[in-house]
């Protein structure tokens, strides 16, 4: 007899956290129906969400464990695979093994992965792709506010009087958040957009500030200079709720609009007017994303945003705040669960003795003390031969890390690489053992969206082939290695343990998560969740100002490499394309990669629209199709990084922010050359 069900789940793509129903008919996924009662998505989805079933049933799904024999992958059984992995891991000392957890996996799986790294492998070197996107946020907002997450909720943007979007192509990256920005605009809010490119939001913006890539600190200091000069700061807020104001005042006094214009290329009148609008608004929100974080000055950029919000008293009230838009469906959760080298779950430091004692007791095992390595450091050490083995779950550093030629050498240099993934990604190609993992439609768990909303994904179909949910794989592997404490029968049980050790998740229980989810901090079972942070006091008590001086990006254009390359995303594809390039509707929209170049630059180089050119940097070169457009300013080229055959990260610079260790994806120097015609092939 027929079986039909609608399974409410969370979209596996971006951090908006939209909900939809997976329709299952006789055990097969037949379609997607948006959820009208969800507080953020309200029955609407973007093109990726509407097509989120294609990749689940793709023929490319890995269905059995694989082992590399003589350069080819051969199928083996789960038992054999896990035995080999556990034996190998036992061989290596804890300094020689590192773990990459996944921002696409559930909270439970991230918790288990960091527990595995710390309790089984005895290393704190566990990291994930937040390092590459919002590490600066975690550090920067942690320094200034005490908590490194989005301060307000997505829906509150609709009621802001002024929204300042800097370094975020919201319409393409977080379409359902752009919806609220547009609604605010239609209600009369003022929209200020700061981006070197012409993005879809700029046509609706009241002010478009086109800064030179990498000059955000100067721009933000310029704003604060105008605000202080015209007496528009919120003196009461500064006195009562913050400390360190003198320090920031001294620094921003030097950034008058004329000087800022020289640094950023933005006309000073625009800077002055935009700053006035932001300061005079009753509720003003700052929205930012990769354009602020992915720089060698990423932490400085984030701190400057926080400074700006605090100077105008725009924190701790609805529709205000500093709102970093997290990219992945669960990158917030992966950070919250402590899949980071310096903290346990809930941002409890590994070097704090009390914290360590607590975890030692609950996990009943010795735990390492030394702070672990971050992704960039892991790759560098692997290249040198100090790291001998890696366990990578749901990440594709071969396309997403900067300077991928270096990454390839590093991963090839490893003695043992285990990759746990759904598809044979570029990283999996280099593995010794591949473990097939289940997709979001095949397991239970929770994901945390960018506005700290913990929501449930629910199992709709059985795992394809012999693939297993990641939490099951980690538990079986831990048991094979002889460790206690990994005998969970369901993700709900894992969440019970998480709630026990993680104060901000203290009240998260599966039965409480209905359609709207629960926003942390949620310390107890009666607590309803927290829509906006820092209401009466900041997480660290008083907000702290820091005076930040402007520093240029690490690699500026010069005579040999005259263009600035900035990388980014487009709405139709997602990150390294492992899921979206296996989706028919999305491939039809954008089948291959392209590079945006300004009309004038194209004319000077004598290249035409659609022509294939060579793009070279000090790290590598790629061949790519050109798109002539006015969207990028002269002297800048833009590459989406989703395309494996012309990977933008073959060119990018692995220089990173000294504290957050986040690479500078947004600025490096490249050269564009016309392809020489091969005259022998006429």
């Amino acid at each position, binding site marked *: 007899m027929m079986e039909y069900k609608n399974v409410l789940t969370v979209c596996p793509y971006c951090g908006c956290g939209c909900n939809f129903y997976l329709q299952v008919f006789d055990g097969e996924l037949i379609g997607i129906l948006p959820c009208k009662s969800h507080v953020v998505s309200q029955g609407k989805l973007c093109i990726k969400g509407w097509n989120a079933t294609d990749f689940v049933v793709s023929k490319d799904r890995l269905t059995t464990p694989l082992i590399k024999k003589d350069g080819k992958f051969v199928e083996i059984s789960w038992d054999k695979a896990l035995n080999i992995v556990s034996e190998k891991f036992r061989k290596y000392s804890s300094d020689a093994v590192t773990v990459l957890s996944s921002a696409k996996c559930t909270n439970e799986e991230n918790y288990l992965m960091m527990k595995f790294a710390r309790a089984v492998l005895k290393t704190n070197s566990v990291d994930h792709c937040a390092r590459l996107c919002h590490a600066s946020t975690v550090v920067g907002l942690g320094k200034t506010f005490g908590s490194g997450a989005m301060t307000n909720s997505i829906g509150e943007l609709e009621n802001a009087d002024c929204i300042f979007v800097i370094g975020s192509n919201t319409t393409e990256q977080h379409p359902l958040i752009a919806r609220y920005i547009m609604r605010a605009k239609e209600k009369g809010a003022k929209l200020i957009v700061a981006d070197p490119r*012409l993005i*879809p939001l*700029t*046509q609706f913006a009241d002010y478009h500030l086109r800064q030179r890539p990498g000059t955000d600190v100067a721009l933000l200091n310029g704003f604060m200079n105008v605000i202080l000069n015209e007496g528009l700061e919120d003196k009461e807020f500064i006195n009562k709720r913050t400390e360190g104001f003198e320090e920031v005042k001294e620094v921003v006094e030097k950034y008058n609009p004329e000087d800022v214009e020289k640094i950023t290329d933005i006309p000073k009148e625009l800077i002055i007017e935009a700053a006035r609008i932001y300061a005079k608004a009753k509720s003003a929100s700052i929205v930012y994303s990769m354009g602020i974080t992915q720089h060698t000055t990423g932490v400085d950029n984030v701190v400057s945003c926080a400074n700006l919000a605090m100077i105008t008293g725009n924190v701790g009230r609805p529709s205000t705040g500093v709102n970093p838009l997290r990219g992945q469906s669960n990158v917030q959760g992966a950070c919250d669960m402590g899949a980071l080298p310096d903290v346990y779950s809930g941002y409890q430091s590994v070097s704090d003795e009390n914290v360590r004692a607590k975890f030692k007791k609950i996990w009943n095992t010795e735990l390492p003390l030394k702070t672990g390595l971050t992704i960039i450091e892991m790759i560098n050490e692997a290249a040198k031969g100090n790291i001998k083995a890696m366990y990578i779950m749901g990440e594709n550093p071969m396309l997403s890390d900067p300077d991928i030629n270096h990454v390839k050498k590093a991963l090839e240099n490893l003695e043992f690489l285990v990759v746990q993934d759904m598809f044979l990604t570029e990283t999996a190609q280099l593995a010794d053992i591949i473990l097939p993992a289940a997709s979001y439609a095949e397991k239970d768990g929770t994901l945390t969206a960018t506005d700290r909303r913990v929501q449930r994904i629910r199992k709709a179909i059985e795992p394809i082939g012999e693939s297993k949910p990641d939490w099951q794989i980690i538990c079986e592997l831990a048991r094979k290695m002889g460790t206690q404490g990994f005998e969970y029968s369901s993700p709900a049980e894992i969440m019970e343990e998480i709630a026990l050790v993680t104060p901000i998740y203290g009240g998260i229980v599966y039965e409480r998560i209905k359609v709207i989810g629960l926003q942390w901090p949620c310390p107890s079972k009666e607590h309803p969740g927290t829509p906006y942070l820092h209401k009466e006091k900041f997480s660290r008590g008083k907000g702290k100002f820091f005076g930040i001086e402007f520093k240029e990006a690490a690699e500026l254009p010069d005579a040999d490499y005259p263009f600035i390359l900035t990388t980014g995303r487009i709405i139709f594809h997602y990150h390294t394309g492992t899921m979206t390039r296996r989706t028919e509707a999305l491939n039809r929209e954008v089948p291959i990669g392209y590079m945006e170049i300004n009309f004038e630059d194209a004319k000077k180089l004598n290249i035409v629209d659609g022509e294939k050119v060579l793009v070279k940097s000090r790290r590598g070169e790629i061949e790519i199709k050109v798109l002539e457009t006015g969207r990028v300013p002269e002297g800048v080229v833009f590459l989406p990084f989703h395309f494996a055959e012309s990977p933008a990260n073959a060119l990018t610079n692995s220089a990173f922010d000294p504290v957050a260790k986040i690479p500078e994806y947004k600025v490096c120097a490249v050269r564009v050359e016309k392809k020489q015609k091969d005259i022998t092939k006429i």
Partner: protein
Amino acid sequence: MFEPKILGFCCNWCAYAGADLAGINRNQYPPNIRIIRVMCSGTIDPLYIMKAFQKGTDGVFIGGCHIGDCHYQNGNHRAKKRVAVVKKILSYLGIDPRRVRLEWVSAAEGQKFAQVMNDFVAEIKRLGPNPLKKRFKA
């Protein structure tokens, strides 16, 4: 001086032959029209009309056989109905429906073809250039 660009879809059996006849008889008409020959006015997908405007054409002319004379019996019936609906939608989108003209011109009506063209070009000149040409750019 604004010189309109007009795209004309003329059916092979009647309107195109009529245009040809106008040429043979030296019935003068303005050079603003570019004619595309189709087998029947009923083969014209209405999306072509909108596409023409999207590309910047100032006017679209559709020429077919008189009702009852269609080489394929009732292809021109389709054309008439479709053009009526298209004109309505264009008017709601803000494009003047007078920029689309449907006329029945038989193979013997060379004079009529020239007259219709003169009239239509004058009308488009009065209406001005295609307003979509000045659209917002992202």
